[in-house]
């Protein structure tokens, strides 16, 4: 990887030494619902979401924190679920692409994504929207540089970057618009 491209390493969770690889029971809080799963304690959250809870929107791309297809939120922070073992989640709230539309920012982003017609193959887009939602949550009017640094960990192999940028800006504008409306009323 050329060193001029920073890849966000905002994943607060790291592989620990304490996973044993043996089966454990976990309670998970995903998109506002509770789930109980029995899995090996080193199982990445990605595979728990996809194959235990049957939420297929979180995608496997690289398994190494390099592509962002598996991005979810843990207590609101964007995290690569492929490198986050289930044993590290604890009681944190997990939000996936299936749940992000329940937040105002998520819903605006999904609408902007459709208005701008971003999607090509679509495989990366769930992860893109999750990273974009985390960005807009902390920055209501991101600059191009802000977008670059927040989104550089999310690969789009089809190259829809121009439209992703445009959709983020559109969602940000509607956000400012609704804030202004609120102020007036």
């Amino acid at each position: 990887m050329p060193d001029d491209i920073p890849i966000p390493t905002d994943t607060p969770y790291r592989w620990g030494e304490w996973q044993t690889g043996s089966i454990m029971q976990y309670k998970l809080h995903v998109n506002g619902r509770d789930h109980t799963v029995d899995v090996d304690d080193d199982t990445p959250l990605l595979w728990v979401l996809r194959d235990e809870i049957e939420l297929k929107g979180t995608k496997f791309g690289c398994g190494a924190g390099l592509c962002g297809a598996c991005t979810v939120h843990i207590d609101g922070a964007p995290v690569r679920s492929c490198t986050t073992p289930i044993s590290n989640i604890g009681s944190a709230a997990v939000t996936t692409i299936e749940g992000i539309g329940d937040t105002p920012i998520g819903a605006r982003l999904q609408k902007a994504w459709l208005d701008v017609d971003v999607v090509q193959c679509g495989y990366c887009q769930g992860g893109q929207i999750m990273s974009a939602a985390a960005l807009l949550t902390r920055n209501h009017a991101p600059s191009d540089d802000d977008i670059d640094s927040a989104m550089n960990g999310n690969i789009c192999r089809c190259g829809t970057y121009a439209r992703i940028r445009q959709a983020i800006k559109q969602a940000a504008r509607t956000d400012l618009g609704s804030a202004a409306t609120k102020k007036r009323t």
Partner: protein
Amino acid sequence: MLRERQLSNSSNRSAKMQMLAASAPLRASRRNFLKAGVAAGGGLLLSCALPGLAKAAAMGPTEGTSAVLNAFVRIAPDNVVTIMAKNPEIGQGVKTMLPMLIAEELDVDWAQVRTEQALLNPTLYGRQHAGGSTSTPQNWDPLRRIGAAGRQMLVTAAARRWNVPESECETASGQVRHTPTGRTVSYGTLASDAATLPVPDLKKVRLKDPKDYKIIGHSIPGVDSSKVVRGEPLFGIDTVAPGMLYAVFQKCPVFGGKVVGANLDAIKSLPGVHHAFVVEGTTNLNGLMPGVAIVADSWWRADKARRRLDVKWDEGATGQQSSAGFERQAAELGAKAPAQVLRNDGDVAAALKSAAHMIEAAYSYPFIAHGALEPMNCTAKVQDGRAEIWAPTQNPEPGRALVAKTLGIDEKDIVVHMTRVGGGFGRRLANDYMVEAAWIAKVAGVPVKLVWNRADDIQHDIYRPGGWHFLKGGLDGNGRLVAWQQHFVSFSRNGKFAPSADLSADTFPAGRVANLSYGASLIPLGVPTGPLRAPGDNALAFVFQSFIDEMAHEAGKDPLQFQIDLLGRDEMLPGKGAGFNTARARGVLEKVREVSGWGQRKLPSRTGQGVAVYYSHLGYFAEIVEAAVAENGAVKINQVWAVGDIGSQIINPTAAVNMTQGAILDGFAEALHQQITIENGRVVQANFDTFPLLRMSQAAPIEVHFLKTDNSPTGLGEPPLPAAIPALCNAIFAATGKRIRTLPIDTAVLKA
């Protein structure tokens, strides 16, 4: 409103469009057989058999009986029109675009339309693949005719119902209207009547005048996009088959290696592992290769068990091959005369000798992988001599044949579901993952979902082959190109050019340089190669268009004007499809000069513009790249202008622009970053850290224009890519005076 009379009035134009379509080089069969029937639950069902598929037609009883599944068009009593999308959706937008063609001529509103992915059934649907930018040229004419035939039957049904002449009826928005009285009736109401009528001759149905289009030429968002942005399951990797287990498959890291033995008992004792077995495999590099399968109750456990796998391999002859070795052989071969002559016009040696200026250059490019974001995967169920397969494939028909042959199952006993595909780029024209899943499911005796990890994907790709070109070019005293000598050192498989490693003798500037020779020497190769988006062209454009740019600079001429001059008079030169149309190439060059303001702005230092033009997969693109090169050699692409000529109609403009931008960025990723290195017969790179894809911060703005010309519409997956690479390299030369002759671009040589 589309009137019958208007249609007659415009039939001249329609006839012209049909002629245009008929002249399309990759035209589909002229004769189509349309069948009508009553859909289950009432309504009209139109299905169509494209001829020339007698073998498939003999396949058996499913066709015709499961009529609802096999229909192209279904009109329900509530006026909902369901249109089957026949080809795999890989992000190129065909699940939207192909139904648009039918809906337009059927004369319904897009809001009434639902699209459904068809099953693999070439008897009904004709060729069902996604490759070579062929979906548009192969379907543009036949699918519009299917829509038009349906419309004509509905008009007939309405006219009979009202007992009026058909000429007094018009259609719009899924309704037939009796013009004199203003009565209307919906297609849904008429559908059951229409279904009993004889089907019109597809050759004679009248097509709309393009100026009346309400769907074609209008931007229609992707039909599955709302599901994509909500994360609904659509892709092959999302498949769930009842009772399935998860599989991984470890192949020999050296291509073609065989299994001698493995610690299967230890693997079988690991948690969650149900099966571990050796697959003997075949010698087909695109088929079932030898390896060890592990089947477990979760993918994670299967992949984890693989880390304990200890396999003794017989690596075979390919273990001796390496990129460094190829490099040495290429240099040796390049210094000799070519082993085979591909073309020899005039007297190149004499012309080079007498040339006023002569340039010699050696170009090369590496192997590269596809890196589709959805790793290869497939779900299969094999039971009682039958198979059901869910595959993200670009090419389901040969996949089914491969499974049939390898497993000894009759093709008619194999059902193939085409899932949405998370990126194809040519990788999924091969079906190795499909036959692996089927084989593992058969041996394990349970349905399995096979998922490759990223290392499997990058280390077992079907690679774009590397290549070396040794060139000499000569100019006369007026700066005209008079001599071109090219020795291509490439690879062979079974004594012939390896797949996607060849050079056509017609490649431009052949036919435009009086003294020109193309020759080749081949290095035997054990590494699998095959098509990557714009196969051949993605590498050759870099070589040809860079060297032409070198000659232009040597001649002291404007590179864009030099290209136009080289194209010469308007003419069809021999080439792929109907040939290479110099007028269309000139057209896109002139247009890109205009929209970019080429040569009219003063650029900052170490900033330059480069131009390239290429004919690929029936489409013409000219592109200008403006790039700035920093003191440390880092390349920043400021802006791109692209002009394409893909015929008379851009069917879905929003998708066309998206696809063009993506293809150009794809070219930049190849040029800037990508290379696969072979050491000891195996691939060194394993993930996106060592095989980088382009990221957001590198995505330059790309302005896209289409030049509409009086040619039948063609596809867009590949044509925009090839020119992007030389346009970038030519821009770097303009910025720095350094000529890029090796890919990927080494920024170290660009330091100030």
